[in-house]
């Protein structure tokens, strides 16, 4: 039985476990039908030209893990931003770990999707927001929607701001030989609300793990959302991240994606500007080696006038790694005075590494400023000679130049401890100790 068939037949088992009368279940039933019709994307589709899911479909993934597992905090502490106090929503093999988590209902809701999808008090909000911005057509998103049951639920009411950043962590223990995880997150920032989220998926073994995650983010008028994705997983863990963002007037949403590892990572990041004077920022640093593959597929849809978007993705590819940047900007006819900027710069440090960079601009308005640029190159020989002539050995000099190359992406990180952590991850990834705290 292939993975698609297995998933479709598993849906029946899933149904015996959830409330079939809840309005969300109609959405799930519709979604599984859409998935059944479309199946997994293939390389024939333009958006999947450079990323193949064939290998993953051959794996007999466990869809419902049999038992719950416990982890000791000391064993996984390093994956948390433990330098500072945070709210934590933690899952182990897809199951909520209350022991490792720190949730709250004090003025804001930082809790679980399973509560939001079952308790009557959340029904009104779920009705307004759930699956409203996520695609009802894209097959992996519909697959997630069909099985949506658990994940993070964050609701920040008008004028509120949580006291500290929120971490969403998913651990895979390897208790199952293979595991498919499908977390579903819903994040709502009402008018003037502000929040910071850090999301991380971490496998603790070499057993195969595939995560197909969907996150919906709603930023109301004047809301500020900072979202950080830290992707530094083991070589047997793959991630398909589908994030959908709905922005209203004057909201500011920044998504930073740090891709440093994992087998196959696909980031489908979609911004919809449903208001005026909106600011959207998409930034990424990708540093890959081995046979890792990362595909950044972004969409910024300018649907109203006077908005801005800033995209800046930097990639450093070594060994046999492959990267894809597919950035699409759509400017509707009504969206005059749009200012859209897109930049993708890549460095290949190995002859066997590959990058495919493809900007796509669809502009229907005539009074707009849209610029894009992509570069693929090697390290500047002259710059390298400059550093070496000052006594810095080749390897360290290369690292310093690569750090400098990626640096401007980090400037907008607003949690200093996270910035330091990412700095260290970059230095680590480049295999050198730079001898000072960058």
């Amino acid at each position, binding site marked *: 039985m292939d993975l698609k068939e297995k998933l479709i037949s598993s849906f029946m088992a899933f149904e015996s476990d959830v409330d079939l009368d809840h309005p969300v279940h109609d959405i799930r039933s519709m979604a599984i039908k859409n998935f059944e019709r479309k199946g997994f994307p293939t390389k024939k589709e333009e958006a999947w030209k450079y990323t193949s899911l064939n290998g993953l479909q051959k794996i007999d993934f466990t869809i419902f893990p049999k038992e719950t597992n416990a982890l000791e905090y000391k064993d996984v502490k390093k994956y948390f931003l433990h330098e500072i106090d945070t709210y934590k929503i933690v899952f182990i093999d897809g199951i909520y770990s209350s022991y490792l988590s720190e949730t709250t209902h004090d003025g804001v809701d930082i809790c679980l999707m399973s509560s939001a999808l079952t308790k009557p008090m959340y029904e009104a909000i779920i009705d307004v927001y759930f699956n409203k911005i996520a695609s009802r057509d894209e097959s992996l998103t519909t697959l997630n929607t069909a099985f949506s049951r658990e994940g993070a639920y964050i609701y920040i009411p008008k004028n509120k701001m949580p006291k500290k950043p929120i971490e969403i962590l998913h651990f895979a223990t390897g208790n199952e030989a293979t595991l498919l995880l499908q977390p579903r997150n819903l994040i709502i920032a009402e008018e003037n609300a502000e929040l910071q989220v850090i999301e991380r998926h971490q496998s603790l073994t070499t057993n195969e793990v595939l995560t197909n995650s969907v996150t919906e983010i709603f930023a109301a008028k004047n809301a500020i959302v900072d979202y950080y994705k830290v992707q530094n997983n083991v070589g047997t863990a793959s991630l398909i991240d589908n994030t959908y963002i709905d922005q209203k007037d004057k909201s500011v949403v920044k998504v930073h994606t740090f891709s440093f590892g994992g087998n196959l990572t696909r980031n489908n990041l979609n911004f919809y500007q449903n208001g005026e004077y909106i600011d959207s920022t998409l930034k990424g640093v990708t540093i890959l080696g081995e046979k890792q593959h990362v595909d950044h597929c972004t969409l910024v849809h300018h649907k109203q006038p006077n908005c801005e978007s800033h995209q800046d993705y930097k990639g450093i590819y070594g060994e046999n790694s492959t990267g894809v940047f597919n950035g699409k900007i759509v400017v509707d006819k009504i969206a005059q005075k749009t200012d859209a900027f897109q930049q993708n710069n890549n460095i290949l440090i190995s002859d066997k590494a590959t990058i495919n960079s493809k900007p796509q601009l669809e502009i229907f308005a005539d009074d707009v400023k849209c610029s894009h640029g992509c570069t693929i190159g090697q390290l500047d*020989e002259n*710059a390298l*000679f400059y*550093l*070496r002539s*000052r*006594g*810095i050995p080749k390897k360290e000099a290369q690292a310093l130049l690569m750090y400098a190359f990626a640096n*401007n992406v980090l400037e907008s990180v607003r949690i200093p401890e996270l910035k330091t952590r990412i700095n260290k991850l970059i230095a680590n990834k480049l295999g050198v100790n730079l*001898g000072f705290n960058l």
Partner: protein
Amino acid sequence: MLKIKNLHASVEDKEILKGINLEVNAGEVHAIMGPNGSGKSTLAAVIAGKEEFQITEGSVELEGENLEDSAPEDRAHKGIFMSFQYPVEIPGVSVTNFMKTAINESRKARGLEDMPANEMLKLIREKSELLEIDRKFLSRSLNEGFSGGEKKRNEIFQMAMLEPKLAILDETDSGLDIDALRIVANGVNKLKNKDNAVILITHYQRLLEYIVPDFVHVLHDGKIVKSGGKELAFELEEKGYDWLKNEAVV
């Protein structure tokens, strides 16, 4: 200290240096002058170890050791410093952090521990005062957004920090106004002593009014066509390079 014998060097099979002989002893200042395209910057880069240049014949020796197989960083550790005509911008790495890395890498190569932080700070303070460099300047990203003069001054600051045996200043005077030139020259003069040596590469005689050379060499078409004392520089300033070119043909 530095002995260059019959040096031939090429880039992509094009011969640029065509048999250079030069000996520089400790305590000396040598000026290398010559028209554009004569090979001045190539000579500097070959001494510093830039890999795109191939030495096809002859040798470069530092204190009796042939440098042919020596990487640029190894040459730096042995005491060679080259001030760049066009210093490279490194965003996100401050001048201070860059210097810490460079100094500690040199120390590591000599089997020494990292320089203690207070000692490093003292050294930075002392040398930045010498070059009249503002403290704020030191926390800026290396060369990023620096003016031409600031870049050159920063090069000499790095030289002061690294205390090389042999400093090669490649067109350090270009792009400097008279005040900056005076500060840079003053810095070089204060760093000069009987144990180190300086090679000044310049197009104009102007710098030599401030840093007085012991020897002046004129480079033309990859060869030293004339050597002399500091008075040669004045002669060149008056007559230009053309009379030398003619002499070389004869």
